[in-house]
């Protein structure tokens, strides 16, 4: 089945290496998924900032985005960014690695967001 490329994924973490590592893991099972990342701040420091997240959202070719993140300030910045972009953002408060992996594998298999959300529900931890 063809991958679902209408729906994309954005990963947000406090350091670039976390999203880089998860991307590497995901790409093994999901080579065709629309995936962009924001790791660390715009200045390359540890943390997250809205401007950097917005760049990852704009760079993503998909129109509907499922977003995964590591810690609290990423969540707050994501909420801020939701007010700053026209793209629909869906934020999941799930285990970061497991959630992102689940989402990527199912998007690759062609599943819809609604179907994926059922699989994500038990992974909610925050």
């Amino acid at each position: 089945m063809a991958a679902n490329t209408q729906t994309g994924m954005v990963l947000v973490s406090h350091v670039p290496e976390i999203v880089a590592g998860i991307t590497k893991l995901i790409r093994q099972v999901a080579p065709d998924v629309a995936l962009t990342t924001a790791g660390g701040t715009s200045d390359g420091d540890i943390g997250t900032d809205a401007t950097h997240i917005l760049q990852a959202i704009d760079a993503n070719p998909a129109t509907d985005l499922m977003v995964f993140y590591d810690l609290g300030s990423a969540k707050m910045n994501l909420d801020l960014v939701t007010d700053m972009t026209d793209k629909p953002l869906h934020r999941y408060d799930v285990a970061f690695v497991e959630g992102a992996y689940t989402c990527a594998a199912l998007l690759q298999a062609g599943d819809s967001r609604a179907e994926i959300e059922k699989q994500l529900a038990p992974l909610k931890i925050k």
Partner: protein
Amino acid sequence: MNVEQVKQWMQLFSAEIEKNKDYLSQLDTDIGDGDHGNNMARGVKAVEAGLAKDQPTDLAQTFKSIAMSLISKVGGASGPLYGTAFLEMAKAAKDDENDLPALLQAAAAGVAKRGGAKVGDKTMVDVWLPAAADAKQGQLNDAVIDKLVAATKPLRALKGRASYLGERSIGHLDPGAVSTGMLLKTLLQATK
């Protein structure tokens, strides 16, 4: 409150943050990731540069400029939280009505909503919400602010990075509450 007072407020706040940068980072080292002082110092520098560049002429533009600097430069959770406080004040500000308690109320509600924290969770909300209520009663002063900040010490953190420490967060001041205390005290100085 007018634009000049807000600019003076930011200068006073910036000086206070700069003076206490190491203290704030030390508090954050005890129960967080140790970067609050540096993050805030970077934020207030960006605020001053942003105001100089934007040259805002009304209260809403001034608050918006401050908010965008904090959102894009602070890095930690304080960026979106303080940024939201100033964005909400920008929305609440009107040319002909500079009601300080109403502005503080909007800011406090915005911070509480953005972070999802309640009073007692050992966060900056422990200062923001009661201080806004006291301002409405005309009873906000330095002593009240100090008391609100100090009250975070015996609490166990339920939100924020310190919450990962559980019981070990007890007995330390919350760094965000401390910097919020500085923000509100310098506000009182600038508008007195």
